[in-house]
């Protein structure tokens, strides 16, 4: 050990030197307190033996200064004193020393004290090193967390949660969230929404949410139906989630053009479907097994379909809301939530009302689980307002494209996203993409639903019939054995845009074209809507006499960017 002896009397210093060197310690000397303080850094001793009465600066004062200089480092100081007993110990400890040795020296006592101090010093250093190591790890971890959080936020902000029809709240129990809330404009002219909850929270749950967010965003954007999206999310979650973990989700699509809500709820608490005055139209209960549990072939992807009216509202939330506890260990519960819904005025935001009610209830207790709420106001005018302004469009030649789908293909594929993808490859339609999507979808639905499946639009006249219609559609599609739909696109480019001719022919019996057009004027809300939309969006709509062939013409122009 390196021992620093601070002693003004030569005799004592010599005796100590002898005693210490006998045990092979390295000994350094200072002859007063001031010298000791000045040399402490250069000598950097393991232990100090300090006389008390010395010139310039005494032992107590020197000890104070040295301990200050050492900071976190522990260098034990043993006072050399002529006192003994309790009095010596008290004055030693009071003045910042760690022990004392009385004169005349007993070398065995001194050795024992030195080795005791050595043990404490080693222990202290170990703790200090570990503390430092932990600190470093913690810093590293924090840095990583900040980066991860930034990435996570970027990924999560892909949805359009700033849409005027939406109000949302997201309160993570940890920095990272196991809850997901997303909304994405669909090219059909509606929006897809997802509110989901991975079992557990924190980093693991957040990690799992990344691929789900990507799938939901990309597939919605490309125009895939939510059934396909649900299947893909399920496939993916089964692939990466450990057994025993799952993903509860409420996934829905609001079709603005057809005033239709399609919903799938697997494992999320009852969502609320409210009318304009916030009366409960329907509780959208979970009737499916959550995602990530059963394989796709066993997964039930049937959707609940409802007709929606202007200003209807939807309120979806995660179980963290109803299971939030206050200090008395009471649960917030569904009845408190329903009380807020009943007392909320139609001009108010339900999310903010519930939020302030919840704050009052839980007071200062921290959230134990992630709390997420999403409120959607079905103000159709305000749904995905298309962004105008487009840059130069690469010119391509005129082209033609046709395809024939037989019953098997119609059953097993969703042809519209594929068609749109191909159209976009052929010609950059940019901001006309959505319109085009709608036209193709309406034409295809007409051919499929009325031509092939022979469904009667009149069924849709009542709200119950509305759901029934889509159920029949689903059943019909599954039973479909023969038939085809032929689709032909022809495009001609001109100076500032182009003309797209679309024809669809189905193997069905056709319909009374004249009557349908006449009906349209009378009741355009419940049926024949597809035709009305086509007439609004296209420059020309015509049918063959039999009614199994429809031709549309869509003129598009290249809009200049507006600032």
């Amino acid at each position, binding site marked *: 050990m390196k021992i620093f002896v601070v002693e003004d009397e030569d005799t004592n210093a010599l005796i100590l030197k002898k005693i210490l060197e006998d045990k092979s310690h390295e000994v350094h000397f200072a002859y007063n307190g001031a010298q000791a303080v000045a040399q402490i850094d250069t000598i950097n001793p393991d232990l100090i033996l300090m006389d008390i009465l010395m010139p310039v600066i005494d032992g107590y004062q020197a000890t104070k200064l040295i301990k200050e200089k050492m900071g976190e480092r522990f260098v034990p100081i043993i006072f050399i004193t002529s006192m003994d007993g309790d009095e010596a110990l008290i004055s030693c400890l009071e003045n910042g020393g760690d022990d004392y040795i009385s004169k005349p020296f007993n070398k065995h006592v001194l050795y024992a004290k030195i080795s005791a101090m050595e043990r404490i010093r080693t222990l202290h250093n170990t703790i200090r090193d570990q503390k430092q190591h932990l600190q470093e790890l913690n810093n590293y971890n924090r840095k990583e967390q900040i980066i991860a959080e930034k990435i996570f936020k970027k990924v999560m902000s892909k949805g359009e949660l700033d849409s005027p029809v939406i109000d949302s709240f997201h309160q993570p129990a940890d920095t990272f969230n196991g809850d997901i809330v997303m909304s994405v404009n669909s090219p059909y002219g509606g929006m897809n929404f997802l509110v989901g909850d991975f*079992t557990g929270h924190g980093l693991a749950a957040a990690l799992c949410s990344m691929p789900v967010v990507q799938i939901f965003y990309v597939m919605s954007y490309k125009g895939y139906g939510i059934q396909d999206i649900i299947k893909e999310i399920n496939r993916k979650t089964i692939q990466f989630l450990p057994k025993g973990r799952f993903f509860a989700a409420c996934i829905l699509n609001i079709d603005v053009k057809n005033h239709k809500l399609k919903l799938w709820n697997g494992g999320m608490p009852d969502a609320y479907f409210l009318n304009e005055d916030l009366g409960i139209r329907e509780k959208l209960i979970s009737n499916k*097994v959550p995602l990530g549990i059963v394989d796709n072939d066993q997964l039930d992807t049937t959707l609940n379909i409802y007709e929606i009216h202007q200003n209807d509202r939807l309120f979806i939330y995660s179980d963290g809301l109803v299971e939030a506890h206050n200090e008395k260990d009471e649960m917030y519960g569904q009845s408190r939530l329903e009380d807020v819904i009943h007392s909320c005025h139609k001009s108010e935001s339900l999310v903010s009302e519930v939020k302030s009610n919840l704050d009052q209830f839980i007071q200062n207790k921290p959230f134990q689980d992630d709390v997420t709420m999403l409120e959607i106001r079905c103000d159709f005018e305000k749904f995905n307002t298309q962004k105008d302004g487009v840059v130069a469009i690469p010119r391509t030649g005129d082209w033609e494209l046709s395809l024939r789908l037989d019953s098997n293909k119609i059953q097993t594929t969703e042809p519209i996203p594929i068609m749109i993808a191909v159209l976009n490859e052929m010609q950059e339609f940019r901001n006309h993409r959505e319109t085009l999507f709608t036209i193709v979808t309406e034409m295809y639905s007409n051919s499929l639903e009325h031509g092939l499946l022979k469904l009667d639009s009149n069924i849709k006249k009542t709200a119950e019939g509305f759901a029934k219609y889509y159920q029949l559609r689903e059943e019909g599609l599954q039973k479909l054995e023969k038939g085809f739909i032929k689709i032909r696109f022809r495009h001609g480019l001109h100076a500032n845009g182009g003309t797209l001719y679309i024809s669809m022919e189905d193997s069905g019996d056709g319909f009374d074209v004249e009557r349908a057009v006449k009906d349209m004027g009378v009741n355009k809300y419940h049926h024949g809507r597809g035709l009305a939309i086509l007439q609004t969006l296209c420059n020309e709509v015509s049918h063959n006499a039999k009614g199994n062939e429809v031709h549309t013409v869509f003129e598009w122009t290249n809009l200049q960017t507006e600032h």
Partner: protein
Amino acid sequence: MAVSSTDSDNGNKVSIIIKGRFDFNDHTDFRESYRQYPANAAYTLDMKDADYMDSSALGMLLLLREHAGGDNASIEVVGCKPEIKKILAIANFQKLFEIK
């Protein structure tokens, strides 16, 4: 202990008894309660003394189902209080387990 198990019929019938709160803290005990029994045993989960279960407990049920042969598992969940029934119903576990 909150989780215990007994067997009869040479280990072909296993009864797992849950008491109090059923949540992540029971993870190890729950796993230990069935690990020694074969996949083809008939399992009964006795919940009559369970007061609460959370979503991680749902996950544990899925692990038991996996252990007992997945789609071929024979697992009955009995004696559930209404609150627990509700949690099971939200996740539609009646499609995966026999809930009585």
